[in-house]
Each structure stands twice: as structure tokens, then as C-alpha cells.
């Protein structure tokens, strides 16, 4: 019984986290339009990607007492439920969803926000509930591939918040080729700096010169590649990659990867911080 009560309290925290993490999207006009302009099969693809990412995030961060894959799967499903309900309630409150709209339009609007809201749901419970449960759950092992996976989650999360906006395309229009190249370099440098100083050092030993190259090759460059792929995925899901010349598509990707790099660089720090 006590475990049930604790779980219910965790759920309440999860709702708050979902609301916080998805709020920028709830209040973005282009996101509302995606409900009826986006290709349904591509939205389905985004939803399909959401669940395994939530499962791996549950494994890496530890939502509730997660022991074994079934618990992580349950946590991910619970986070999905919280995300969808939060989306439905918030979008209805904001007048974005109305009863007169066709069901598919409503489902699509909610589907777009389940990923960021789901991440918020998972992280909030872990962050806010840690003390109460005395560090419940074994955080997952952090191998090389797990680190990359975490970067993928962070990259997708931040990029998703800006990907639907028209500003993203507008920024690409405003930039010349050299500025785009500079933005790509700055994104990589930002990612590298975050990984090097915020992530790998700080609490441990000072940064050595050899770390610089090792982290650059093994994490920063791989991480930037993840940012580029995440950006491409989102551009495809939201139908922005069609009939666009390669040079222009590259500009979109670089602009979006700037946001993605920030998410990828901070993902591990945010989740690791919670392990205390």
C-alpha cells in the first residue's frame, strides 16, 4: 500500500515535469498546425521512436524503483500516459484542441508533444522524488553506446522544441554560407566544451590535454553526427525536407543542430546530476 502511495506521488510529479518540458511546444502556433499538416505516417514514426527512447532514459536515469526491463517498460508507458494526458489537458485549456475538431487532428497534436512531455515526466519524478525515496533504483551502466544514446535523447528533445517553428527556416534564409559554416563550428565547439568541462571533469580530475582529443574524437564528433541525424529526422517528420535543394537543407540542418548540440551536451550532465 505504501508503495502505491509513493508511486502516486511520483505520478503527480511526473505531470508537473511533463507540463514544464512541453510548455514551449504547447504555446507554439506551428506545433498546433502540425496536427493537420504533418504526414500521419511520419508522426507515427516519431511516436514509435518515443517509446524505446523513454525506456532507455528510464534505464539511465531511474524512474521509480526500476529493476529489470519490465519495470523500465512500465515506467516508459506510464511516462507516455502522463505525457499524452498532460498534452490533452493543456492543449484543451489553451483552446488548441476543441471538441469540434476531427479525432485525427486531436490525436496528431497530442502525438507531437508526447516525446518532450514524456522526457519531462521521467526526469521530474527522478529529480523531485529522489530524497523521498532515498535514491531509489539502480542507475543504469554508462557504457559508450549509452552515452551516445543519452546524447540522442538530449539532441532530439531540444531540437524538437524549435523544429516546428518558421523561425528555424527564416534563420537559414538570413544566413550566408560562411555564417552557416561558422554556426556549425560553434555548435561543435559548444558541444565539445560542454562534454569536456561540464560533463567529464568538474567533480573529478582537471582536464588533461589528452582528454581534449580523446573526447573530441570519441564523443564530440560522434555527438555532432547524432545532432545532424536528429535534425534530419525531425525535418523529415515535419515535412520540411521535401523539395528543398541540398544546400538549403544543409542550412536547415546546421541551424537545428545548433539547438540539438546544446541538448546533446547537457543531457548527460542533467541526468548524471540526478544520480547525486
Amino acid at each position, binding site marked *: 500500500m505504501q508503495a502505491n502511495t509513493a508511486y502516486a506521488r511520483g505520478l503527480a510529479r511526473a505531470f508537473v515535469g511533463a507540463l514544464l518540458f512541453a510548455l514551449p511546444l504547447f504555446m507554439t502556433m506551428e506545433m498546433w498546425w502540425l496536427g493537420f499538416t504533418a504526414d500521419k*505516417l511520419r508522426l507515427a514514426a516519431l511516436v514509435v521512436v518515443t517509446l524505446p527512447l523513454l525506456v532507455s532514459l528510464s534505464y539511465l536515469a531511474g524512474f521509480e524503483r526500476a529493476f*529489470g526491463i519490465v*519495470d523500465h517498460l*512500465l515506467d516508459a508507458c506510464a511516462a507516455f500516459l502522463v505525457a499524452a494526458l498532460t498534452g490533452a489537458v493543456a492543449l484543451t485549456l489553451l483552446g488548441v484542441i476543441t471538441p469540434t475538431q*476531427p479525432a485525427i487532428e486531436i490525436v496528431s497534436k497530442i502525438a507531437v508533444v508526447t516525446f518532450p512531455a514524456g522526457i519531462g515526466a521521467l526526469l521530474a519524478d527522478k529529480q523531485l522524488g529522489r530524497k523521498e525515496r532515498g535514491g531509489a533504483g539502480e542507475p543504469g551502466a554508462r557504457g559508450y553506446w549509452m552515452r551516445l544514446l543519452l546524447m540522442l535523447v538530449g539532441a532530439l528533445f531540444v531540437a524538437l522544441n524549435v523544429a516546428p517553428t518558421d523561425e528555424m527556416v527564416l534563420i537559414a534564409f538570413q544566413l550566408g554560407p560562411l555564417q552557416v559554416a561558422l554556426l556549425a563550428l560553434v555548435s561543435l565547439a559548444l558541444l565539445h566544451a560542454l562534454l569536456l568541462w561540464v560533463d567529464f571533469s568538474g567533480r573529478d580530475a582537471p582536464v588533461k590535454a589528452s582528454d581534449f582529443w580523446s573526447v573530441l574524437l570519441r564523443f564530440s564528433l560522434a555527438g555532432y553526427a547524432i545532432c545532424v541525424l536528429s535534425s534530419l529526422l525531425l525535418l523529415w517528420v515535419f515535412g520540411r525536407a521535401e523539395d528543398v535543394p541540398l544546400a538549403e537543407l544543409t542550412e536547415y540542418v546546421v541551424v537545428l543542430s545548433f539547438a540539438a548540440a546544446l541538448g546533446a551536451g547537457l543531457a548527460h550532465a542533467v541526468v548524471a546530476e540526478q544520480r547525486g
Partner: protein
Amino acid sequence: VAKASAPEGTPLLEWLVGGAGALLFCAVLGVLLMAGLSGADAPPSIEMRVERVTQVRGGYVVEFTAENSGDHTAAAVEIIAELRGADGSRETARAHFEHLPPHSIRRGGVFLSNDPRAGGLVLRAQGYADP
């Protein structure tokens, strides 16, 4: 994952909420896949219907609904209202919808200075853009 010993096991509520989440996940996926695979491909077809005409200061407002019965969203929809008087006079007014999603109804209105209740009012969608 190393199996840690769970003192109380998985709470029942966790099973319920997780199960409901799994069902909802399948439902959302199912709805999206069904809509995506239905192969419905009809172009936007916009039907206009006058709901109400009200006299306001300086003329009349005609409230209408626009229903898109096609399978594609029409963006930047231009609505034109044409009122032909018995004396051959002609008055036009326009309205604009940012989006008309498929199988949806949106509301709008046009302002006219002559009374359209006498007849001779034609409402139609002029064109749209593919979003």
C-alpha cells in the same frame, strides 16, 4: 541490469498505469497508422454555408461556416462573398482562413453594406495553398 532485491515488488498501481500507458500508446499509433495508410487522397473541397446574417453598425455581417470535405489541408484559403442587388449593383467582401484541415469546419464572417437577406449572395472559396 543486476536484479536488485525489490522489498515490496512492483506496486499494483504501477502495473495499472503502465498498462494504461501501453494501451494508449497502441491506440495513438493505431489511429495515426490508419489515417496514414487509408490512402484517402481527395483534394480540398470547400463547402460554404451561411449561418446567420445580423445587422450591425454601418451594414451587415454574414457569419458562415466553411467545411473542407477533402483529405488534404487547404492553407491560405481566400473566401469571397459576392452580393448582387436587384438593381445590378455588385458588392464584394473577402475573408481569409490560415488553414482548413481535412474533414473540419471553421467559422468566419464577412461585412457587407447592403442587406444580403434579400437574396443574391454567393459565398465561395477562391483558392488555397498546399501547406
